[in-house]
């Protein structure tokens, strides 16, 4: 789900760049904690690699996008993280395009922020099942929203919104299902192993509570 060079018109590219850089700068300025940086590095790597590996699935092959997982794990820092991943993908693999980094960042960053926001609402609860379900929902939602954003962006290139949206979502139904499972499993795993990594504070926490995501 990367838009290539030359698909979007110049004003749209420039506008998206401006908005994306603005959002990324705001996120970094207000939400970045140096304690979180190692985590950001790991999650950015996961995002970077996930898009490059395609899994053969039936007649086609799909690759994961993981905006949901990035959002759940990083909260507001998901946006700069995704942007960094996309810059490297564009530079090293011509995956996406240099002129469309802004548009692609918005396309995957906004769903990530949305997923992060939703997860943030439930992560303080003590109900593990609820947290895991929220993770799975966020995983699915991230890809779903990315498809919608793609359709919105392509409308500016003169394509029909519902046409693109239908094609994009149909092609990504398997991805949505896989990402939902992956994100749910990741949240379940983190809950057991290191809950403070996803900002969850357990009741009888033996470890000192870490700085939460939103602080």
């Amino acid at each position, binding site marked *: *789900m*990367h*838009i*290539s*060079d*030359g*698909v*979007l018109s110049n004003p749209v590219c420039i506008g998206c760049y401006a908005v994306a850089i603005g959002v990324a700068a705001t996120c970094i300025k207000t939400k*970045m904690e*140096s*304690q979180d*940086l*190692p*985590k*950001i*590095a*790991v999650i*950015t*790597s*996961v995002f*970077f*690699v996930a*898009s*490059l*590996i*395609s*899994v*053969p699935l039936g007649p*086609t*092959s*799909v*690759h994961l996008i993981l905006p949901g997982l990035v959002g759940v794990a990083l909260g507001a820092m998901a946006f700069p993280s995704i942007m*960094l*991943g996309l810059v*490297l*993908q564009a530079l*090293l*693999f*011509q*995956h*996406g395009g240099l002129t469309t980094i802004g548009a692609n960042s918005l396309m995957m960053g906004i769903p990530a922020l949305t997923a992060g926001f939703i997860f943030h609402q439930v992560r303080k609860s003590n109900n593990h099942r609820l947290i895991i379900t929220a993770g799975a929902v966020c995983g699915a939602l991230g890809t779903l929203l990315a498809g919608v954003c*793609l359709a919105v*962006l*392509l409308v500016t*290139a003169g394509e029909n919104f519902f046409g*693109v949206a239908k*094609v*994009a979502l149909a*092609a990504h139904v398997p991805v949505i299902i896989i990402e939902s499972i992956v994100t749910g499993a990741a949240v379940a795993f*983190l809950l057991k*192993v*290191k809950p403070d*990594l996803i900002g969850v504070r357990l009741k009888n926490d033996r*470890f*000192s509570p*870490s700085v939460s995501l939103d602080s």
Partner: protein
Amino acid sequence: MKKFLPVQGIKLPGAVIFGLIIFVLLSTTAPSFAHKVNIFAYVEGNKVFTESYFPDGRKVEGGTVEVYDSQENKLLSGTTDTEGKFNFVPPKKDNLKIVLIATMGHKNSYLLSAEELGGTAAGEESANESGQEAAQTENTSPESNVQAVSSGTGAAAVQVDVQEIKKIIDQSLDQKLAPIMRQLVKGEEEKVSPAQIFGGIGYIFGIIGIILYFTKKKAS
């Protein structure tokens, strides 16, 4: 930062990276990304053949192929078949830009230079669509006109022979070279290699590390 130093802080990134490495290694059998398209073109005879595919080798079915000349004028367009192939007779001899537009914002182009078209004298031969033999009398290109006008004389007979020999040589050369051409173009394919992926991960850690260095410096 102390919180990250104890063992439980290091455990998880280690596990994630390990999982990542395993994932990459398992997937190297088919390293590819479906969200990029490639197109390549080669000349055979008087036709330009194009093939479109995703980097994992899957063909682009029903993609739109548009051909532009060096002035960005659209010359023709068509759709790829189930094999991802589309071929056309170049309407003129020029640097052609062949653009592939697949669905969902995927686009790529291939530049075919005039020299590559050169051997076929594509501009003249494009008129031969209806049939090479019949074309001689109807051909409007200046070269053929000269031929037609002076066809009675002995000198012209020699010239025609030379022309025909050239054509025959060109044809068999094209045939013989076609597989090599295809291989050459295939060599230009961009594929993701594990080395590049690890390089990318290295970049990410490096960049974050530099940020961490400066934020720590500021804090202390």
